[in-house]
Each structure stands twice: as C-alpha cells, then as structure tokens.
C-alpha cells in the first residue's frame, strides 16, 4: 500500500496486531487442545500401555506449559506499556 492511505494508517503496526493475534489465538487453542488430548489418552492407556500413557502425559504437560507461557507473556507485554 502507498500514498495517502499509508500516512493515515500505520500499516506496519496493524500488520503486527494481525499476526500477533493470529499466532497467539491459534497456538494457544491448539496447545490447549493437545492438553486435553494428552490427558484423555494418558488416562485411557494408564493401565494397559504405560509407556504410551507417559508419552501422552508429556504431550499434555508440554501443551500446558505453552498455554501458561502465552498467558504470562501476554500479561507481561501489557504491563510493559
């Protein structure tokens, strides 16, 4: 985009809003879904296939860490303004 429109609209700033919202929204939703998937599968395989259950529990933990990190990062970015 060029000309008067770029003077009125800060295109770079808006683009940052778009990709930050897109990445944050999608990644957090996917990570939380993996928490659910990991937790449910770990519960299902707990008695019959303990190794697989452990892998799923690890997946759930990793997802949970991503969600927690995203929340802490989001709030800290807000506090830095």
């Amino acid at each position, binding site marked *: 985009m060029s000309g008067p429109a770029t*003077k*009125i*609209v*800060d295109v770079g*700033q*808006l683009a*940052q*809003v*778009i990709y*930050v*919202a*897109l990445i*944050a*929204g*999608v990644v*957090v*939703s*996917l990570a*939380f*879904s*993996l*928490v*659910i*998937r990991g*937790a*449910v*599968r770990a*519960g299902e395989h707990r008695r019959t296939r303990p190794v697989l259950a452990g892998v799923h529990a690890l997946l759930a933990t990793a997802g949970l860490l991503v*969600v927690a990190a995203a*929340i802490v990062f*989001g*709030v800290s*970015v*807000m*506090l830095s*303004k």
Partner: protein
Amino acid sequence: MDSADLILGIVVATALAFDFTNGFHDTANVVATTISTRALPPRVAVTLAAILNFVGAFLSLAVAATIAKDIVNQELVTTTIVFAGLVGAIVWNLVTWYFGLPSSSSHALIGGVVGAMLAAHGTAAVHFDGLAGKVLVPALIAPVLAFVVAGIAILLCYRAVGRLAPGPVSRGYRLGQVLSGGMLALAHGTNDAQKTMGVITLALIANGNLGPDAGVPTWVVVSAATAIALGTYLGGWRIIKTMGSRIIKMDPAQGFAAQGAGAATILAATHFGYPLSTTHVISGGVMGAGAAKRLSAVRWGVAGNIVVAWVLTLPCAAAVGAIVYGVTRIFGGGAAGPVVVAAAGLALMVWVFVRRLQRGAAITTTAEGVSS
C-alpha cells in the same frame, strides 16, 4: 466552587456513569459464551469478569492516550463538549441495551465526542486521519481478524480431539473457557476502562487542571476501574442472551476458540493503543467459531442486526452528542446547560429502568443456557 469546576464535576460523574454503562453493556461480550456452554454458573462468571475487568484497567494506558490526543484537537476541547459527547454515548448505549443489541460502547463514546466537537468548532477540530487510522480501519479489521482466528482455532481444536470421547473433551474445554474468559475479561478491562480514563483526562486538560502532555492521574485510573467493574458485576443480562445463544448454539470448544480469539485480538490491539470495540471482536469470534463448523450454524439474521447497530453507532452517537451540545449552549456558556441536561438525563434513565423492570425480569439466562 466556580462554574468551570462544577461543569468538570458533572463531566467526571457522567464519564464514570458511562464507564458503568460500558461494563453493564459489555458484560455480555465477556461472559456470554462461558454461561451458554455451562463452563461457569452465571453469577460466578459475572463476578470473575468484574474482578478481572478491575485488574485489567490497571494494565496499560496506551488507549487512553489515543482517546485524549489522536482523535480531536485537544486545544479546542471544552468540558461542555466532553459532557455532550458522553451524553451522546450513554443515550446510544441505553437505546441498544433496551433493544438487546450488542453495539459498541467505544464507538458510541468516540462518536459522541466527535459529534459534539463538530457542532462546536466544525470539521477543523477533528483529526480525521487519527479517527480513520486509529478507530475506523481497526474497527473494520478487528472483527474479521477475530472471525478468522476463531475459525482456524476451532478447526484445529476439532482436529486435535476429534476421536476422543465427548464427555472429557467438553469438560476440558469448559475448564479452558475459564482461562480464555478470564483473559477476555482482562482484555476488556484494559481496553474499555481506558476510554473513560482518556475522556476524563481530556476534560482535566480542557479545564486547565492538567498540562497538554500530562499522563492519566492515579485517581482517574482507580475510579474508572471501579466503575467498569461495578457495571460488569450488575451485568447486561439482556445482551448475554443475544450473544450467548442467538448468534449460534455453541459447544464448549467453540466458546473456548471464540474467547481465545477475542482475547488475543484485543490484547494485541491494546498494546498499540487502538481503542477497539470488544463487542465487535467477540461477535466476530463467535461467528467465526460457528461458521467454521457449519455456515448455516450462524443465525445470519441476528448477525445482520448486530452489523446494522455497528454501522449506526458512530453517526447516531455523534448526532446525539451534537444535539446535546446545542441544547447546553441554549443555556449559555456556564454550568446551567450541563446541569439541566444531566438532570433530564438522570430522570430519563430512571424512567427507562423502571419501565424495563415493569415489563419483566431482567435476568433471562439460566445455568442451562437460555430460558426462552
């Protein structure tokens, strides 16, 4: 107390009243999906949202700075103009609340101030580039962005949990909704409370209590946070019904995706000082989460009514702001105009509330979803 201080007092009280109606009006945006999917009981959801709205108001001041500096010419602002703008916003908020339409409190406030400014000083007093760049363009982009983010998120959610038993999955997403709803309440508090802070700061600058480059005083932050939290707690149950079930019937995964998309969009925009409409954003998220599953799941007629309310908000609030400014000028430049308008407005608000209560219970949403 001289006349100028009396007008300033009325402006601050009116701004806090607007903030209260903002919380009252926008509670639906924050808690509707949480309630309609039974992630939390209504009272608990609303109380949590009120607390997080209060906390959120302390997180950032970038939006307040935009409202105070980038939209109208600060040097031409008077306390009477700010007052007229606030009345325009409150009137439009009450009209849309009365009809259960989730319109934008933010655009009502900005429209009201711009309308009063146009009536007082003409087009030269409005920064149309700031209005377009900081308000109108983000207003177009934000709901589309939330729609897309929620749409992609829900498809990935379904993909990730597709073959699992529905019971534990629903319980998991309900738990997730407590988190995403909390983030949304935080985002709402930080973006919306700042608009009132910006307007009060504008009035303090206009009255000479603050210099042009002064920051937002602490008492303004605390009082705005309190007003929006109180409004949120008392809640806009009529709009919860529209947001929570009339656009789409949601499952917990959709509610989680819609709230997560809304929170991500609002927090990202707030960081850069864009005064977004939380209503627009979460409506976009709700529609995106519904449309990605099945286009016909979205009640497009209701969605269309909301779009019409959005389109009308800026011009209607501006028109009311301009009319109110004209009425106050009839009484001269002193405090008489704002006093008369404030008294008349208060009487009208009481009449609307009493009439609304006489027509039936305000609470229309139950823990099971919607009662009618």
